[in-house]
């Protein structure tokens, strides 16, 4: 062919191939390219903010209510008081300890955790890569992200046992990761928290105590050491927080969960705006407020306290009056938790989701001291908590550990799954919950959702499911 059509095509093709730029476009305006996000402190701060919003911008995510409600159902704290619809049945099976791998509440809890881990890992990726952040902000955000990741894994390992340990965003690799041993997960949690301790600033930044400072990492580490049986480390870490000077037990039990509570170490701000049928929206308060408070005065609460918990309150315990509520409807009495009372957001004294508070630190140190044989020291810490509840001091008795655990049940009921996890870590689950109909030893671990086992052939199921 003397007319060089082919050559023309070839040349043009090479030219085009050479300039890939020709068909490159900026991202759609509704999304921001990763390079822009990490171009400066402000962008990276906004990405951090996104993670807090992801935790709280829902009706009941794992970090917004579910970690308080679902384990409380599984243990001996609350039970469902809901009509038996299929959806309610899914929730009721936590109370009945009859979870199946298909349970949707269990799946959404598991899913919510890993989605958040991806967001955190993605932020850590952004900080590791080329970015325009100042060194201080870079370090601070990294510490914050590590703390959140440790916090999520702490719950995953406690609720599910061995879990896939994902610390990267490379989904081709992470999607098929098998479960890591609980020890390895805890090691990651400790590493993250210790690094966070080094990086986080001493003082709180931003609104109230919502953004973790160094003391938050220390407080969480205290809890981790307690769970790991490292009594000395736990006592030291808890002692560090107690001695911090910024925290004191709120004398008024009604103020413990408010923004501005002196007892709070880490709180999360409720942000969810619920859409109304007419197009408007109502900003709701904490999920606990929305879930545990009855909708109206004439409606029964959705969850009530189990009788064993109600009867565990000592006479004169101020907490019974302040943190539980009685409602009598048509002759039936309902007792329900009322640590959080607001259902709708209020600008004056709003309730914040309180993740860590000083009372827990006292109880951690008390238990650690007791386990190390320091009964007097343990009793002293325990009595700080009891005194605030208007109870007599116990002093160093025979079973200080037992007294501390009992106190934890009362002080921390319906908060963040404390009771469920305490029973498991102390090996008392079988003893305390064995009385529930159909209890099996394997019920202490929730099942890995069935859909995940299908999606990742390397995952294994927990025993009993």
């Amino acid at each position, binding site marked *: 062919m003397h007319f060089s059509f082919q050559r023309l095509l070839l040349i043009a093709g090479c030219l085009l191939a050479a300039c890939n730029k020709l068909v490159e476009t900026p991202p759609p305006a509704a999304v921001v390219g*990763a390079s822009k996000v990490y171009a400066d402190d402000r962008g990276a701060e906004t990405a951090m903010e996104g993670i807090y919003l992801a935790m709280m911008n829902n009706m009941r995510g794992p970090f917004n209510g579910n970690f308080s409600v679902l384990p409380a159902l599984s243990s001996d704290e609350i039970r469902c008081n809901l009509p038996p619809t299929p959806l309610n049945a899914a929730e009721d099976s936590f109370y009945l300890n009859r979870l199946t791998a298909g349970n949707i509440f269990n799946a959404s809890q598991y899913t919510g955790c890993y989605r958040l881990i991806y967001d955190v890992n993605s932020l850590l990726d952004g900080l590791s890569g080329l970015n325009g952040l100042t060194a201080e902000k870079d370090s601070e955000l990294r510490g914050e992200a590590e703390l959140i990741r440790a916090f999520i894994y702490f719950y995953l390992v406690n609720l599910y046992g061995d879990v896939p340990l994902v610390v990267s965003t490379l989904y081709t690799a992470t999607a098929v990761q098998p479960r890591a041993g609980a020890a390895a997960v805890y090691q990651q949690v400790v590493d993250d928290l210790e690094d966070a301790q080094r990086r986080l600033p001493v003082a709180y930044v931003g609104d109230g105590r919502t953004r973790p400072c160094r003391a938050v990492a220390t407080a969480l580490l205290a809890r981790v050491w307690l769970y790991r049986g490292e009594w000395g480390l736990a006592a030291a870490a808890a002692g560090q927080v107690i001695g911090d000077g910024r925290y004191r037990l709120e004398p008024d039990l009604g103020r413990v969960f408010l923004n501005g509570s002196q007892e709070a170490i880490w709180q999360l701000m409720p942000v969810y705006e619920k859409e109304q049928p007419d197009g408007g929206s109502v900003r709701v308060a904490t999920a606990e407020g929305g879930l545990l408070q009855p909708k109206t005065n004439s409606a029964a609460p959705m969850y009530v306290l189990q009788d064993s918990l109600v009867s565990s309150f000592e006479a004169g315990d101020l907490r019974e009056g302040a943190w539980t509520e009685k409602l009598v409807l048509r002759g039936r009495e309902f007792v329900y938790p009322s640590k959080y009372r607001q259902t709708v957001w209020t600008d004056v004294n709003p309730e914040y989701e309180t993740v860590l508070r000083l009372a827990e630190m006292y109880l951690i140190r008390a238990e650690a001291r007791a386990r190390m044989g320091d009964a007097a020291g343990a009793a002293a810490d325990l009595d700080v908590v009891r005194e605030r509840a208007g109870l007599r001091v116990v002093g160093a008795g025979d079973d200080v550990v037992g007294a501390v655990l009992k106190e934890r049940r009362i002080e921390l009921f319906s908060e963040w799954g404390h009771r469920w996890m305490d029973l498991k870590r102390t090996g008392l689950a079988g003893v305390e919950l064995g009385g529930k109909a159909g209890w099996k030893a394997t019920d202490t671990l929730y099942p890995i959702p069935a859909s995940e086992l299908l999606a990742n052939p390397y995952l294994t199921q927990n025993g009993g499911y």
Partner: protein
Amino acid sequence: MRFYALFAAVLLLHLPCAAQRRVSIHGRDLPIDIIVNVIESQSGDSVKVYGKIFDDWPGVTLDLENVPVDVALDSCFSGLNFRYQIVGRKIYVYREPFYNSPLYLPVRGRAVSEGGEPLPLAKIAVRDHRDPLLSDDGAFGIPMNGFFITVTVSCPGYVTQQLELTNKVALNTVVLQKEATSLNEVVVEGYKNSAKRAVIGTPITLKAGDILIQHASNPLDLLQAQVPGLSIVRPNGFSNGEYSVLLRGRRSIGAGNDPLYVVDGLPFPSSSGTGIIGPGSPVGGSNPLNSISPEDIAEITVLVGPASTAIYGSRAANGVVLITRKKGLSGPLRLNADVSYELSRAMMGSRLLNTREFLALRDEAAKNDGYGSTAVPEYAWDTSRSSDFRKAIIGNPARGFNGHIDLTGGTSGCYFLLSGNASTQSTILGRDTRDSRGSIYGYLHLQSPNSRIKLAVSLSYSAQGERLPQEDLTRYMFLAPNAPLYTGVGADRRLNWGADSLAFSNFIGLENNSYELRVHHLLGNAQAVWQIKDDLYIETSLGFYRRASDERGTTAISGQDPSLVPAPTGQLSLGSAVCKNGIGELLARYRHEWDWGLLETLAGGTLQTERTDSSSTTVAGLTNDVLLATGNGGTAVYSANRVNYVYAAVFGQATYTLKKKYVFSATGRRDGSSRWSHGHQYGTFGSFGASWVFGEESFFHFPRWVSLGKLRASYGTVGNDQIQDYQYALSYSTVSAGGARQGFLPTTLYNPSLHFETYKNQEAGLDLGFLENRIGLSVVAYRSWSTSQLLVQKLAIQSGAPGVMSNLPIRVQNDGLDVVLRASVGKKGGLQWASSLNLTIPDNKLVSYPGLAVSSNATTYVTGKSLSVSQALHFVGVDPGSGLYQFADRNKDDTLNYKDFVPTKSRDPRCYGSWSNSISYKGVRLDIVLAFCWQNGWDPLAVLDQINYTGAGSQVVGQLSNGPVEWLDRWQKPGDRSGRQRLTVLQPGMPGAGAADALLLRSSSDVSVRDASYARLKNLCLSWQIPESWLKPWRLKGLQVYFRAHDLLTLTRYPVTDPEIQNPTVFPLTRSWKFGFSLTL
């Protein structure tokens, strides 16, 4: 006497004939009538005498014995100023002066197709003259070189006509009838026009003449059932709705299946860009092709098959629809005007139950569940009231007016077309619903005197406005027939929304929530062709497209159920989107003919950029419906977005035709799209093919009635990039909550290795023509495989998301057979009949899907079956004893779950097509298009059950409680045999609600797919071209009156509703009648 010499030549031609007929005349002073009588009686010829020649006839003396007729005539007229002409067996006699004057005056005329379209390629030849006259866009002038001449008018692809002209008769229009099949017909393919002889692919063309007989609001309407392999399904009856278009089957599972639309050479977006505002559009989008008025379309060509589509590369995966608009004509100014009135009515479907029937069913349902009539709350309403809500909601007549005007004219070097359209139409929802459109279109053609440079500029603007309720209200016709829409009387009369167990959505109130859409389209295009050498052309094309749409939705306080929201407030939603698209193309063509063949090559490049800006504002909390107009006093939320898309390509094609019988063609294209990341942006596509006109081989001895035979085959690859932009890179989206807190979160998992979906196509075709191509048959067999399917790959959530968009090695195969049979029979000036049958037998198959069992599509698709086959329980029937639906427990584990699933029937058509007939006689023409489809579809009763699961016994009276008369056939007592089970008032999942559970299971079981075949009288058009002689006094060139009916009659066994839409709760199709006239000045 020069003329005489010519005339003699004409005479000589007739001599052999005339010489054979001999006459004998003897007599003195014979009068002319005697001579005529003698010649007629002896020769058998007929003699026509013009003029008053008898007045001064001198009388002649003849003594002729057995001489040829012409000799006799010569003797008769010698010395007299009379002349004669013998044509066949006719003899014309006339006085010479009469014939002298118009001697060289040309007779002017115009060759047009049956549809009235000018034929620019028409040729006219005076019989036995060597050089035919080329027409100028169908118009020609013939110098008369005799009183009487025979001319031949021919045009590639049309049956050649012979005309006998006398100079007394002006030749106005010559209507050429299309050949059923022809190798000479010119076909538009991508980037070129070729004679059908050289075409390897399968382009199907509809010309304006075929288009205008149809009643259509959209070019896609025109194509429905007209093109083999092209399935167009209307999801609802809104004239402005989106269409589901599939060309040769569904090929992509996860990405778009839209064909590429090319208007006047420019790619045209197929998505509407509407639906930005929260409530969305009740129509489900607005088809952007609505901006093109059917009256402005010259032709639509659908390209399928590798040889035709590969030149469009990555965007032609699902075929190409080329729309070419009219370009005007040179010649004197011509003005066309067309005005029509239209009336439409809904295709109503089954009658709904009246109150008596409805309450009887409710009663029976309550009794079945052990309740008394008190369990039927509707008894609280007036039981003597019975409203036909179907009639109230969709029973309104929709009326519309349509006007079109165009003006064209100019010289061959410069001509233009200006056209304007306006239409307005109400809908069957009545009230103030409206769909109005207006458009103007202009085209200008310029060329240099030597025709080496040609320039064409076109510009069009269209505006469209639509006003509808915010939601499709059709489904509210299923409200219980005794529901009171109002409470109170007189001044206290207000809308009733019911309460508690009698709460319902009041459609009169919902009408207050409105949706308005305005769309403006601007389309401009400039094309230049420069002929550098005789065989080398450079072409360039620049185009832009701008679409601006504004949406406005209101939710009024009066349009909300006060029981749902204690203190409702109004909401105003505004949305706007502007899409700007620019495209530049440069093309070189080289064409050279040697003795041994013809080479045609082209090479070019395209660059296209598109930017879409959208924004929406929602104003909530309006305390008064009056404020909906302005939004004052509400709280506003604003959001905006901008999306960019860039596309670049180079392409080339070479076609070589050997001995006019063997054609070889190869096409290559390299495309880049901004939807992929670095290193994956470009894809290479190509095709090759060959055809062989075996009918012209001398070694085959075909019978004479076989006039054409051609074989063709091709193979090629194309691609698809119809996914969302920017999925290849990590991006963050903004979230806002908690008052004004803002955050970034990763949007989705990203996949840097995304690339084009690739389809491999192959086809083979056979074209045959019979009886001088009056009958044509074309059979095409095709097969395509689509791989690298863009689909969300399921991932474990530990990766961060349940899935990621990926190119999966899934293989989908589409086979099929397209058959077109055409016939045209006609006699000039007499009855003409043209018929065309097209038929498609498609087959879609999911060949392989690695990991299907563990994917999220595990019960949606079945390997080895069509993509429309899913998995469901197998329905056994109604147990005559218990009256409950029964399903097969296939694994005998006493539970019904997904393990018992069987593949459902396919919902793909087994066969579809249409049969068109056109009959014309003189100026009257009748066109009938019959469309048919043999298929399975959704069972409408299952669709109703799914929405209203307890059938005629819903305990809570929702919007959908009533049902069609088909509900009356049911199981009533043990032993009954019925297709429908016993009635219940219970909700699924409630204790003892076995019947309700079974109903819900049935609605998703394999019986929810049933036969939905139909045959439909899609178009009927009757038109009458008023004879020109009648129009002369009015100085009109043409006047036509017409009547067109659309979707007039449907033959089907499908119950309840229309088998095309298959859903009784959506806006139905309409049946329409249109009356109009068009005139030409």
